[in-house]
């Protein structure tokens, strides 16, 4: 149906063609069809967004329960009860896999990609709307399977989100005969869902851009989501193959990863991390794109070196396929391999650092407005820098011998992933909220939520850096068995991190209340409240089915023409003819 997008381009206002092409009027749709069986990219975006938010509650509850156990071993955690060793492993696994596969991926790629790509390139919908609907339905199926796995005999899988065999492969080792295969099935189905989404994103960008929108007129966030989708599609194959092999090992007794049958457990690690490392950039790039949109809008500046940002993103993506074994330096691979992967890993710091330099340079000479979305975007830069530089310790093979599998790794990882998955998502949510609902979120409560998240975030993970440097190893439910890890002050740091986590979680209530209250009762926002240039702001807020009721836009210039000297206004929409 959206193959008609190219035909409709250039039609005048009031043409209404975009509407009729869909062949069904709004009045015919009942509630269920509109919100649960929709092919509208915006509704599918919301489905992903709300499912992601719901899963974030599960992931957040899991981390609350197991952090309380670390800080106060043996206590009965309010709202959970006593955390046993079995529970602990299941909670750690659930937190990790949910936050990455069922929060970061659906929110940053699927929700934002679906919502933003057609709007930002001036199309009326995705190229394959039914494929898009199927993508969400598969994703929902994976969510249901995962949640079911919490309640089966033996409980949820507890072999960590990396699911290394032989632990993950045999019930006699992991003691979760049903939890492990269900977890793996859920992951595999979810990847199939995102494959469908990725095909759709790339095809839509290639075919449905507004007339006049050349490749270098595409907003950075769209570029980033597309590059991320390509990375995902290119890297996920080996993992899905590995998942099927592991599922066979679990259920029908094959021995792909079983040394007794001639298999090799390390093979799984290669398959997993060949996907798993590009995956980091799959979620990083969209977050970087979000930040680019926001800092340009709120500093009223053209993005510094637009093309460089795209080249560095492509460079990062290409290099990301050659770094995976840095997760395996000490895993028993040939030690000579570590040298190669140490080099590639440190080299990848260059394009990523360059992207950060470009963003900082964009601020120069700007007129910066510290709105809530801008605070989130700036916080992304400030916090991600620490996540980035601490990665150097781990990419440097000699230092990784000590840091591997300690809380230093964990803190580094969260200093990259929390900015990506949460700071990035909050930036996007607060920035595009007026477009999504036609209303503003409350600024004051938005800032309360911002500071209530950023401050405790640092108080969680800086102590964990210190604990990691002092030898705390990961996935330990009770440190009292280790005399060297119970030296004075160490437990205090664990308690500090846990209490900060509780504060951070409590402040998320502010966000949820502000979000849902503002969606219905917030101050009304016009089509372009931030005076931004990109095409989504030229559609009404919220955009109707078909997006552009006055006809699809033409594009005359790039997305970041802020404060142009020839213009009186400090912005210049992409579709403005003069």
């Amino acid at each position, binding site marked *: 149906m959206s193959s008609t997008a190219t035909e409709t381009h250039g039609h005048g206002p009031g043409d209404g063609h975009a509407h009729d092409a869909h062949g069904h009027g709004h009045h015919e749709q009942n509630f269920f069809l509109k919100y649960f069986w929709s092919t509208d990219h915006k509704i599918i975006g919301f489905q992903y967004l709300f499912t992601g938010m719901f899963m974030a509650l599960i992931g957040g509850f899991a981390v609350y329960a197991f952090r309380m156990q670390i800080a106060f071993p043996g206590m009965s955690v309010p709202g959970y009860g006593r955390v046993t*060793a*079995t529970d602990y*492993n299941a909670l750690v696994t659930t937190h990790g896999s949910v936050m990455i596969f069922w929060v970061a991926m659906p929110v940053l790629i699927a929700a934002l990609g679906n919502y933003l790509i057609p709007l930002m390139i001036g199309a009326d919908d995705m190229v394959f709307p039914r494929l898009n609907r199927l993508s969400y339905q598969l994703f929902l199926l994976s969510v249901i399977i995962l949640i079911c796995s919490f309640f089966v005999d033996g409980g949820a899988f507890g*072999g960590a989100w990396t699911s290394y065999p032989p*632990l993950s492969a045999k019930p006699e*080792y*992991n003691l979760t005969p049903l939890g492990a295969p269900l977890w793996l099935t859920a992951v595999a189905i979810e990847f199939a869902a995102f494959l469908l989404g990725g095909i759709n994103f790339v095809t839509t960008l290639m075919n449905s851009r507004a007339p006049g929108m050349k490749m270098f007129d595409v907003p950075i966030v769209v570029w980033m989501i597309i590059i991320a989708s390509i990375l995902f599609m290119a890297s996920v194959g080996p993992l899905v193959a590995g998942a099927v092999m592991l599922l066979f090992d679990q259920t029908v007794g094959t021995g792909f990863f079983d*040394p007794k049958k001639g298999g*090799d*457990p390390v093979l799984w690690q290669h398959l997993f991390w060949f996907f798993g490392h590009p995956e980091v950039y799959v979620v990083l790039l969209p977050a970087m794109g979000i930040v680019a949109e926001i800092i340009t809008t709120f500093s*009223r*500046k053209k993005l*510094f*070196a*637009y093309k*460089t940002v795209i080249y560095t993103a492509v460079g990062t993506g290409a290099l990301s396929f050659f770094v995976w074994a840095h997760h395996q330096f*000490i895993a*028993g691979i040939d*030690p000579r391999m*570590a*040298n190669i992967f140490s080099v590639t890993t*440190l080299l990848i*710091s260059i394009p990523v*650092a360059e992207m950060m*330099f*470009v963003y900082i340079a964009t*601020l*120069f000479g*700007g*007129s*910066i*407005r510290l709105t809530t979305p801008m605070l989130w975007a*700036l916080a992304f*830069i*400030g916090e991600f*820098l*620490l996540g980035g*530089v601490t990665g*150097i*310790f781990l990419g*440097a*093979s*000699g*230092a990784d*011998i*000590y840091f591997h*599998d300690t809380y230093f790794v964990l803190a580094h990882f969260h200093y990259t992933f929390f900015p990506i998955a949460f700071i990035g998502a909050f930036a996007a949510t607060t920035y595009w909220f007026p477009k999504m609902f036609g209303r503003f979120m409350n600024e004051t409560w938005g800032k309360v939520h911002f500071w209530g998240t950023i401050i405790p975030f640092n108080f969680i993970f800086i102590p964990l850096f210190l604990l990691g*440097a*002092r030898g705390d*190893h*990961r*996935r*330990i439910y*009770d440190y009292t068995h*280790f*005399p*060297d890890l119970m030296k004075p002050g160490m437990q205090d740091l664990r308690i500090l991190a846990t209490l900060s986590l509780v504060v951070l979680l409590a402040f998320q209530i502010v966000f949820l209340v502000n979000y849902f209250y503002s969606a219905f009762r917030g101050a009304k926002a016009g089509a372009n409240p931030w005076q931004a240039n990109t095409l989504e702001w030229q559609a009404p807020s919220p955009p109707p089915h078909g997006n552009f009721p006055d006809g699809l836009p033409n594009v005359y210039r790039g997305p970041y023409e*802020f*404060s142009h000297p020839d213009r009186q206004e*400090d912005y210049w929409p992409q579709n403005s003819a003069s």
Partner: protein
Amino acid sequence: MISKYVDSASSFSGDIDHLIFLITAIVGFWFLLAEGVFFYLVIRYTAQDGVRAQYISGEDPKEKRWVAIPHYLTLGFDVWIIFSAIGVWQEVKQTMPQSDETVRIIAQQWAWTFVHPGADGKLDTADDIRLVDELHVEKGKIVQFELQSRDVLHSFSVPVFRLKQDVIPGRTIRGWFKATQAGGYDIQCTEICGIGHAIMPARIIIETPEDHAAWVLSQTPATASITTPTTQTGGMP
């Protein structure tokens, strides 16, 4: 830096600490500089009435050098770190000095078994000393270890040595260390290995030559035979 909190007790732990210090100094400097510039710009260019933002494309080489120069500096420092890291890595993981003693370390859910060679200095003889969750080594001696697993992945980690190596079922993985300080320290399993992962601690007891000889003597009348390894596995390439 690390040694302020965790004793440095092997011949290479100082080198690893030195590498960590070097990286901290380099990335710390760049991190603080980047954050400093970042905060300066945010404060300096906060919106003011009547002041319009500048129009800078960043495509002009004169402008681009603000990004290009840090870019090349990053590359230069990366190369420095790479050479230092690989140097340490080769010392710890890619060399195998002539050893004075070999111990066999067998991991399983959820215990460590340490097979010491005993008085004759050879493994697989009658006077081997097998201990669960306690490894005795002599200060100043180069010890080669053979890591084996009976079930799942484990990881042999001695923080005071700054040493870590995963243990893989079906293989024997070799490595070495030379203890430089007497004392008793934690051995950890750092790879999740099931529900007992947290209760798999062990201790390494580093003894002076006299104490170690006395300990070997006290264990010699075959008192400590606990289990015989059932799986004698193939070697690693």
